[in-house]
């Protein structure tokens, strides 16, 4: 007996080593087998808590990629929206041209592209926005530009290979067809070059009843924008006794100070409408020519 104690005492460290090894290996193999181990629940609470704190900080470094991703997803979803398609009229479907159709025979009217604002100003009286898509990505003049919440921002006026210049709504030359959401009465949006928060709307007849906060939408006749997209809300009504039209101050729906992601919308039928318009004028002019 004494010898056994002596033996154990002599190799005490080695035995402790063996005990720890057996303990560690049993943890390892039992865990792999049964997916649990001694004290794992408690330890999980602690390490889980620390990991969640870490993830909280870590997430900030991925916000940019995340918002880019969401914007791309929005882009693909907006392209699927029903409002982008015209319901095919049975009388006209036999006239097939290059406009893409979807499988149900709906004719695509609008196509959306996402873009990012690379420069922007609100301080001048002629404000332009530059976006990172250009003619190589299919951007052409006169395409509409909408904010990421689909409120109107401006219209493309010039393109280079990879960038486009957008005339913002905050531009004194800007003239946009708009309607009141409630009554459907049309008017024209312009900007006086002073306050970047307020646009001016003219052309709404005084027969219409207008209250503060009424919504103003894009008009249905524009070749650049899809109809019925948000422009802003009525901020105030200017008294003007000299005419029978209101002058309205419109608070913009898009915040022009911090534009980041925007959509460029292309009207696939715009060219056709425009050329028809031109051809008609020419035809009528020729009819009117004297001596014919």
């Amino acid at each position, binding site marked *: 007996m004494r010898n056994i104690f002596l033996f154990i005492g002599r190799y*005490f*460290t*080695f035995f*402790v*080593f063996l005990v*720890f*090894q057996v*303990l*560690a*290996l*049993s*943890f*390892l*193999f039992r*865990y*792999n087998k049964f997916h649990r*181990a*001694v004290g*794992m629940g408690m*330890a*999980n609470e*602690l*390490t889980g808590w620390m*990991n969640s704190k*870490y993830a909280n900080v870590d997430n900030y470094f991925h916000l940019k990629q995340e918002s880019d991703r969401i914007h791309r997803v929005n882009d693909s979803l907006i392209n699927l929206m029903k409002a982008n398609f015209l319901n095919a009229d049975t009388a006209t479907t036999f006239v097939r041209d290059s406009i893409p159709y979807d499988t149900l025979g709906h004719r695509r009217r609008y196509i959306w592209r996402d873009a990012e604002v690379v420069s922007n100003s609100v301080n001048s009286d002629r404000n332009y926005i530059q976006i990172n898509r250009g003619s190589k990505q299919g951007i052409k003049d006169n395409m509409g530009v909408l904010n990421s919440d689909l409120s109107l921002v401006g219209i493309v006026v010039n393109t280079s290979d990879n960038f486009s210049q957008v005339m913002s709504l905050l531009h004194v030359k800007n003239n946009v067809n708009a309607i009141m959401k409630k009554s459907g009465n049309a008017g024209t949006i312009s900007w006086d070059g002073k306050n970047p928060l307020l646009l001016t709307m003219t052309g709404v007849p005084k027969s219409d009843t207008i209250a503060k906060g009424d919504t103003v939408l894009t008009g249905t006749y524009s070749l650049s924008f899809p109809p019925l997209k948000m422009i802003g809300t009525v901020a105030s009504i200017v008294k003007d006794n000299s005419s029978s039209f209101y002058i309205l101050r419109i608070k913009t729906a898009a915040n022009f100070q911090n534009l980041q992601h925007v959509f460029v919308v292309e009207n696939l039928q715009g060219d056709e409408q425009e050329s028809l318009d031109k051809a008609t004028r020419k035809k009528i002019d020729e009819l009117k020519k004297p001596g014919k």
Partner: protein
Amino acid sequence: MSDLVKNIFRFTLFILVQWFVLFKVPPLHRFIIPYIYYLFILWLPFSIPRFWLLVIGFLTGLSLDYFTQTPGLHAAACVLIAYIRPFIINLLLPKDTSEFNYREPSPRTMGWTPYAVYVLVLTLFHHGYMLFLEWLSFGSILTFFVKLVATTGISFLLIFTTELLFPRKMRFRTNTA
């Protein structure tokens, strides 16, 4: 700062760095995981009793295991190097423990070559045993050796970078003090 407080700080720091930095960095290669946390065991004082060395080794490995969700894997490897450590130190510095002039192993107290051997041997044992246990569940023998060499190399590099970046101030201990 007393040895106890200092080592508690080191322990926390090494485990956190190992998990939140070295396990999270984009991998250099699928074979290579940089390991450094066991440097905590390598840095423990010379005078620590062997029994406590084993206990500390076990706890160090187990705390990392609770992060990596592999209970026992690192603990086994750490207990192994904690057991071997005194033998290596006795081989490299053949003296009685009571006669050590410094508190802990470091390049300055042992000399660069003995310290490098000390680190290399223990690193090999740690990685060898840990990768062996991993290899038991999956992988081929070739992967095991490639992993062993690559991981040992990168850990060795990391440890010497640490030594150069954070030189520890060592007081020479004399009997007169």
